């Protein structure tokens, strides 16, 4: 026990004495700070800050870091662990307190970070020494690290939103203003019921959410039934649908809908020429957003429901049939009721997705306002009313958390799906004829429509000016992606290159971090038992239910000023991606780990391996497919994210998605759609490449199967 804790204490002490305590300009890797090191006010370590610049509030940290070195003098493990707990807890509290309370300090830098980590690990060492987590230091440290990260990067920013809501824009406590903003007519007004004026944003949001959730669940069920219960030939092609939302930036569908139904859209112009109908802006508003969201989220419902439909044990249906139920009765009295929890689950997922969606309402919303958009315009618009944004965020958060809570508490334990994975032989009975016809009639036209939409995306970029001049043209691609070959090498002349490379870089940095954190959390949840595990799980999955817009605004509120000052950097984007996508990694990890029998780890433990060795030698090799999937997934999701990103981009770090949205707002659809096609193509290439490299190697029994994006929970929140 002592050696690792002493190591951390030593590292903390060294960091205190030599690493720059505060964040340096241009970051630690720019090395510009070295010229002024170590006596400078900006780049000096804590020791120098305290002694030369009278930042005496830093000084108490040093004796705390040195205290564990005296541990050998203490008798009895009880006294030792108490020492560690006290040192860790008071150290962390002090560092945080002085960061917030003492003004005039820059943001925390590498030195502060290492010292904080050291204090945390000393605390966790103390926990393990006290006998918590079975005395396992790795587990204790892992839980401590995950909890600390989630608290700092999820709970703290969200709490800033809550606090921001009851402050006015000058920062004073204003509960009355909070109440006025919360109960405002533009939020809760019901004018649309009695007049032609629009309803409040809250009602709009819920209405859209319910419509989208119901439609996408129904369509998803139709697709799932076709794939699992009929003899339909092109099942493979339908399954491709499930991969689409993963690689499509969420607002791209909205763009394609405009290309079809907008004032200059293909369908609109055709109807005008054929029937003389005057083009209108009907698509901008509820119909357009609904259409785009259903297109975007049906594949997700499909993916969820494939599992549900397959999960109904055939023997239950066979039991009904042997009791003389015909196909129709079997379907309505056994199959469908057994799917009910799964259907409710898909509905709630669709609801959450719709509420959190930002891109489609932005592109297609028109005068139909939903919460995510209103939040955005409250911050960036002319009003610049961040307390209004905070109030609206709370409303949105209550909706999504309510749905999330319902999904987990109410449905979590009510699944009838058989997941034993063995013993259930037998075949699902074919669908009743009437149901089959209905399912074909709804799903197949929709599949064709989806195909048309994606064709639009691919074709749209090659047209001179959409709606007016449909001649083939490469000018959008040239404008975005031109490369000059000169004697100085390649010059990335196109307008899109800058944001493209930034996106790739940020995503590539975020992906391994996300996968690591996600899998570590999954390991702790799936393989360890400890008190407070339910709360731990809820906390780590929570960010899944926090809409990106809320995360975006919360990060601005929390990380714009010291002690943690990150806005305008690339780091904030990386952190944002890591914590937004972590729940997906956790789920993938849990799914994969639950297929690896626990006795495989136990065999290793009894033979004398520590838990870290067991993870490295037994669990990780078996998890390789899941690791790759998590990597691919977090990479791709980072590349397609928009809602949180749009708050956090800066001149130096512009992302592809926010660049595209900027083009759309300027009416430059050609370039936007060309850029989208390139992004999609790039991601397809990445996914295929990784599939090729990793291959579909199978391991023996009880091992997970190969990498596949199918079966991954998806979300474009």
């Amino acid at each position, binding site marked *: 026990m002592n050696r690792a804790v002493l190591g951390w204490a030593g590292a903390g002490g060294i960091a205190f004495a030599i690493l720059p305590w505060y964040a340096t300009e241009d970051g630690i890797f720019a090395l510009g700070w070295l010229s002024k090191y170590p006596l400078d006010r900006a780049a000096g370590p804590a020791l120098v800050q305290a002694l030369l610049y009278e930042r005496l509030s830093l000084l108490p940290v040093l004796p705390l870091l040195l205290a564990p070195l005296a541990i050998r003098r203490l008798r009895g493990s009880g006294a030792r662990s108490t020492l560690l707990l006290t040192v860790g807890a008071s150290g962390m509290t002090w560092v945080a307190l002085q960061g917030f309370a003492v003004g005039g300090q820059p943001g925390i830098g590498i030195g502060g970070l290492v010292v904080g980590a050291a204090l945390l690990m000393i605390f966790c060492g103390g926990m393990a020494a006290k006998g918590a987590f079975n005395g396992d230091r790795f587990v204790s440290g892992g839980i401590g690290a995950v909890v600390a990260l989630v608290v700092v990067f999820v709970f703290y920013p969200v709490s800033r939103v809550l606090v921001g809501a009851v402050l006015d824009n000058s920062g004073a406590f204003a509960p009355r203003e909070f109440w006025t903003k919360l109960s405002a007519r533009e939020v809760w007004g019901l004018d649309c019921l009695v007049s032609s004026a629009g309803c409040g944003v809250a009602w709009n949001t819920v209405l859209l959410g319910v419509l989208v959730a119901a439609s996408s669940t129904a369509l998803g069920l139709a697709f799932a039934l076709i794939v699992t219960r009929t003899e339909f030939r092109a099942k493979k092609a339908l399954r491709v649908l499930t991969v689409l939302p993963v690689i499509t930036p969420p607002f791209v569908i909205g763009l394609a809908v405009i290309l079809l139904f907008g004032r200059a859209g293909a369908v609109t112009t055709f109807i005008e020429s054929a029937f003389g109908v005057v083009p209108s802006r009907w698509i901008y508003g509820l119909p357009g957003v609904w259409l785009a969201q259903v297109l975007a989220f049906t594949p997700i419902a499909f993916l969820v429901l494939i599992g549900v439909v397959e999960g109904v044990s055939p023997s239950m249906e066979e039991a009904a049939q042997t009791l003389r139920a015909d196909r129709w009765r079997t379907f309505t009295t056994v199959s469908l009721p057994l799917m009910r929890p799964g259907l409710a689950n898909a509905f709630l997922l669709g609801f959450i997705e719709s509420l959190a969606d930002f891109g489609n309402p932005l592109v297609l919303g028109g005068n139909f306002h939903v919460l995510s958009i209103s939040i955005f315009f409250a911050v960036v618009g002319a009003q610049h009313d961040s307390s209004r944004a905070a109030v609206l965020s709370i409303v949105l958060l209550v909706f999504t958390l309510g749905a999330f809570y319902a999904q987990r508490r109410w449905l979590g334990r009510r699944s009838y799906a058989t997941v034993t994975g063995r013993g259930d032989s037998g075949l699902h009975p074919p669908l009743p004829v009437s149901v089959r016809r209905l399912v074909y009639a709804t799903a197949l036209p929709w599949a064709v429509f989806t195909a048309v939409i994606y064709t639009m995306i691919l074709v749209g970029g090659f047209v001179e000016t959409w709606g007016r001049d449909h001649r083939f043209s490469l000018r959008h691609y040239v404008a975005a992606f031109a490369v000059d070959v000169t004697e100085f090498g390649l010059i990335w002349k196109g307008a899109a290159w800058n944001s493209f490379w930034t996106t790739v870089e940020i995503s590539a940095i975020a992906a391994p971090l996300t996968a690591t954190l996600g899998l570590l959390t999954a390991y702790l949840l799936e393989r360890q038992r400890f008190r407070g595990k339910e709360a731990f799980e809820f906390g780590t999955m929570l960010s899944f239910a926090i809409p990106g817009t809320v995360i975006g605004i919360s990060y601005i509120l929390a990380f714009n000023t010291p002690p943690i000052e990150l806005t305008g950097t690339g780091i904030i984007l990386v952190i944002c991606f890591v914590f937004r996508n972590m729940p997906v990694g956790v789920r993938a990890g849990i799914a994969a780990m639950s297929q690896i029998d626990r006795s*495989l780890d136990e065999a*290793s433990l*009894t*033979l*004398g*391996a520590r838990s870290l060795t067991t993870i490295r030698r037994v669990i990780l*090799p078996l998890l390789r497919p899941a690791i790759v999937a998590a990597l691919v997934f977090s990479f791709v999701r980072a590349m397609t994210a928009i809602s949180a990103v749009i708050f956090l981009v800066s001149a130096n770090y512009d992302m592809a998605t926010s660049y595209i949205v900027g083009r759309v707002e300027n009416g430059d659809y050609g370039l936007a759609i060309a850029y989208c096609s390139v992004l999609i193509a790039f991601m397809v290439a990445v996914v295929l490449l990784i599939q090729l490299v990793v291959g579909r190697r199978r391991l023996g029994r009880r*091992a997970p199967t190969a990498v596949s994006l199918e079966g991954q929970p998806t979300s474009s929140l």
Partner: protein
Amino acid sequence: MEVRVEGLVKRYGRVTALDGVSLGFASGGLTAILGPSGCGKTTLLRSLAGFVAVDGGRILFGPEEVTALPPQARGTAMVFQHYALWPHMTVFDNVAYGLRLRKLPDADVRRRVERVLDLVEIGRITGVMQRRPAELSGGQQQRVALARALVVEPRVLLLDEPLSNLDAKVRQRLRAEVRRLQKAVGITAIYVTHDQEEALAIADTVVLMNAGRVVQSGSPQEIYSRPESAFTAEFLGVSNQLAGIAEAGGVRIGAQRLPYAGAVRGRATLIFRATDASLATDEEEAAPGHTLLRGVLEERLFLGSVYRHYVRVEGETIMVDGTEPVEGGPVTVRVPVAKLQVYAA
């Protein structure tokens, strides 16, 4: 290594899995822990391994208390029901795992792995060391798992229903094999099973558990022929139970009365094995050392080696095994007095 547990308690919410278990496991002996599912036998084994943190009591390996030690510091090795061989490693890597953790030189590792694979009699299969576990049969996989456990020379060998995943024939053969290996190595072994025949066949000592407590422990012969409670008698072998009233000199069962010389008085349970009883159609006088029960034969099943007869006696159905079939109607059940057990109900 002698293993002792003292007053072990483990609760899961409101369920008490171990309710004050105290036991000694003889050094070099094979102890079978037997009991119905949910009796706490697996919890006991897993608390010995260190996977279950007990709520009370002590675990001692020899003089050393290991109650608070994590699994990896206890020096046990475990054989699992589903083998738990690592599918991504070869047979050699599986067996060598524990040795490599101990940082033994490669040559030593190789020598010891080869020796232990010979010991479990799969060393001669060609190229076995480079195969993956999935390429072996179930029985072979379990032999590899045994080898992996034995090769590190653990202080205690723990076996968690190691044979229940195998088909009957392989199970019979491996049962003898496990006992031979355990004796050859001379290791303290603790073997959890729910199969009473397996426990009797393999163990030096059988511990019978029920509802988190030890019901009885002793040699297989002892526990089989001198059950101390109705539960033990019932669990070991196909047994009949009749409710009655014990009095001085006899037990009343409904309208019938059997001679009885024991000490139990009042409401009692009468127990005897189906194999110990026999049937006769005609009225006969009780032979010396036997007692008679009258009843009606209701049904008969052919089980291969014997016929099992279901006889209705005073409103309850009992079973009587015999090599010859008996036809239906009124019958007399003959039970040796020595095989008849009476317990206070």
